[in-house]
């Protein structure tokens, strides 16, 4: 009985917390900078440069995204990114699973992150 008394309010608090988190926080305006240094550090490296994929030690499909500069040259020299040409950049197709396996296959990117990458490509895809 003692445990039951402790259990219910705690469960309610936990359920409420879970519901709050499930909704998410923040607004719908994306003020993040469409700069490669930001995209590499906050999106590409944590999502793509994992041990079995595009890390320095694995370089799946000869793609290394573990750091800003090497990732930049890998994407541009491999024509995964065509500056100022979103529709011609195969990176966008891979991220959206358009006719291919989605990348990253284990943890899809939110549409907002893909849009940020598209904005960077539209801006000429500088190594900024």
């Amino acid at each position: 009985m003692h445990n039951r008394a402790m259990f219910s309010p705690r469960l309610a608090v936990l359920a409420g917390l879970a519901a709050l988190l499930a909704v998410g926080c923040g607004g719908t305006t994306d003020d993040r900078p469409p700069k490669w240094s930001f995209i590499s550090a906050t999106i590409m490296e944590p999502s793509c440069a994992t041990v079995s994929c595009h890390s320095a030690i694995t370089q799946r499909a000869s793609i290394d995204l573990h750091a800003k500069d090497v990732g930049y040259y890998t994407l541009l020299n491999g024509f995964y990114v065509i500056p100022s040409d979103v529709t011609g950049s195969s990176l966008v197709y891979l991220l959206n699973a358009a006719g291919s396996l989605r990348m990253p296959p284990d943890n899809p990117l939110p549409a907002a992150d893909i849009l940020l990458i598209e904005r960077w490509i539209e801006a000429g895809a500088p190594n900024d």
Partner: protein
Amino acid sequence: MRRLLFCAVAGWLILLSGRAFAYPQFQFSSGTGRCSQCHYDPAGGGLITSWGRDESGDTISLGGDGAFLHGAWTPPSWLALGASVRLALLENNSGGPAAPEVAFFPMQADAYARVAFTDALSLYVQGGFRGDTRPSDSSIGGQFKTLAGRLDTNEHYLMWKPSGTGPYVRAGRFFAPYGLRFVEHIFFVQRYTGYNLYDETYNLSAGWVEDEWEAHVTAFTPPPNSFPDSLQAVETHESGLAAYAEKRWNSMAMLGVQTRLGFGSEANRFQGGAVGKLWLEKGRALFMAEADLIRLQVPAASAGETGMVSYLGLTIFPKRGWMVGVAHEFQQSDLSVRETGRNAIDFELNFFPWAHFELLAFGRYQVTGTGGAGDPNASLFMFQLHYYL
């Protein structure tokens, strides 16, 4: 001479077989409050002690002898050995038009050795082969061909720890104590806090462990680029400081606070949070929770983002040998942009039919972003066979 011989054997075992995560579900539920009761690592994980081996046979599984080699041979007191193998079958659906990805692969093949030079001083070495989820040649022969390139040792350290409780100091490669460390590395609280697979750093760590509390402080740095691949951390690029402190009450509850400050060439990461557990003996139920705020600063972009990760889970032990868990995970990389979030629901069923054996079924459903147009929902189903020596 005998020690040299055993060191050579341990080295060979290491060549044969890179992860050392723990089962945080066993804190309190196994009747043990501190992780270091069952693990040589003062913060838990990796090679288990003789106490932990006894528990594995007496309380966790349905029976058997949890000792090394099932008790067929007992190493001398200054030596502890172990090995762990996991085979995985998984189906991964990333939400695209392509058929779900199905893979069968050896997820883990590790060996462990701990050599005690004195009552206080010991050397711990773990090594093995990195699992390869998506090998270019998925045949068994093809997977064996790449073994040499996947050799890894992500834990090796020298430790001064004069007794089971009290102070300790260790130096070497391991994960700085921080947060919940599950067997499955995909949980957001591991993946997005610098504790993803093969992310162990080189550290100098000190701490104090008592029955009712413990505290750990760690200075960490990633392996230098000049180190061979077998010693490289995969994603961690920062050097810094991590601290974790935990208080326990009545063998049924704990609250931990933590922080990790990392400084890298591309980004600086400042994070902190809390961990909690509550064990309800009557229902044999364990609640576990972790939440962290993460500030990532990118100087080159003159920008940064503040994100959050959390885990809230319930694990029930309905009968000896069985463990059932359900959890909700949340991750949002930028709290000012709602669409950068992820929610996941996990289901886990573990069966320990005999000491040394585990069967695991794991399922996850993940909603990316707000779940709207262009936001894919993903799922993962995995079955594992785990054997440890």
